[in-house]
């Protein structure tokens, strides 16, 4: 029972994370595209496409998670996105990219923001993996 509620809770929390994050990206695609570009990972040709579609994928996944439709696939995609996000930000961190300015900061000190984002994303990944693990274990079924 505990596991069941934990499974449900983690799944809904995961959905909430995506639901909270997506709308502002959808409403300000240009800003989000600039943000995506600041990671200096994607080629220019893919930046806009990614910025446009990623938030919608988050929304769709969140809705699927809430209504438990295709939950396995939704959890898979959710975790995939979170891992990619974490990898991107860690990669930026290691490469010394200051995401606040999209430039390679010459200052050796890394802004606290980066650490915050990384810690936050790690928490999200843990949340996502927990939800997926519990789901696979069958705890998230009625």
């Amino acid at each position, binding site marked *: 029972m505990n596991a069941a509620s934990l499974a449900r809770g983690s799944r809904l929390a995961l959905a909430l994370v995506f639901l909270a994050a997506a709308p502002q990206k959808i409403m300000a695609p*240009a800003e989000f595209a600039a943000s995506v*570009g600041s990671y200096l990972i994607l080629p220019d040709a893919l930046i*806009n496409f990614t910025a*446009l*579609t990623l938030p*919608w994928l988050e929304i769709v996944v969140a809705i699927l998670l809430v209504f438990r439709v295709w939950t396995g696939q939704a959890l898979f*995609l959710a975790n995939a996105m979170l891992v990619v996000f974490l990898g991107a930000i860690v990669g930026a961190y290691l490469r010394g990219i200051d995401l606040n*300015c999209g430039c390679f900061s*010459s*200052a050796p000190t890394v802004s606290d923001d980066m650490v915050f984002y990384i810690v936050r994303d790690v928490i999200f990944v843990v949340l996502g993996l927990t939800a997926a693990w519990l789901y696979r274990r069958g705890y998230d079924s009625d």
Partner: protein
Amino acid sequence: MKPPISFGLKTAIIIGVSIGLALAFNATRPDRLPLVRDPESAAQAAIQRGEISLAEAALLFRSGQAVFVDAREAGEYALGHIDGAISLDPLFFGQEYPAVQELLKEAATIVTYCDGELCELSHELAEQLKGVGLRDVRVLRNGWTLWREQGLPTATGDQVKPRDGAQEALEEDLEQVDAAAEKAAEEGGATPEPGDRPQLPEPREIMPGESGSNGTEQTNQTLRHAPQEHSFPEAEIPQTQPLEPAPLKPGLPEAAPSDPAHAEPAPEQPAPQAPSEEPRIQDVNPPVLKTQGEQS
């Protein structure tokens, strides 16, 4: 429990639906984002965001009608900035703005810049400046890098720093620059004290109309001064300098064409003096510098 559709297919469907929704929604937006950023639309978007090209910025610099504002950290500003630029960190806008307020309000045009193609600090600063009522605020994207690469006039030091030998400063040791500045100051009455910081802004405001004639004059000056500048490194200071702040704007040989402009915004300042006289123009600068120093 065997799903009629495979896991992978469902995943693909989810992705496909998301992409479909995204594209459909984007298509309905008045300010839709192009799927692939093409140069033209990117350029248009840039213009919409108030960005100007390096050429335009250099023109403004030359005309002396614009004040350049460095949006990077004060530390990076000290390491090198556009000659005459003011340091104003958007993160500390509230604290720093009052000190440079007068300068900016008098400017016909304000050009903000930071460093890096994706640097948003200059845009943030531009928004903040617009927020306090300044109208003509432009952004020179990737400004510092472009400016430097083009060999346009630069300077080093803190906000309160002397303005001379800006260009040389880039290529040479800071020490050399300082030394030259001090010498210039000593020899040329026009040159402000080392502590003073040269600012283009004020001069520009003065005479938009003059810019034309000044520009020509400036060019001449540049040419003349050029030799002087070269000497700077050697510690030789042109005796003529006293009259002409030339030292302040030593243009690099290569940059000569553009140098005149940046070299000195001074031209504009000449307002008080006879516009046609180049030397005076430079003289005008000193006051400006002082003002700046006071402000900072």
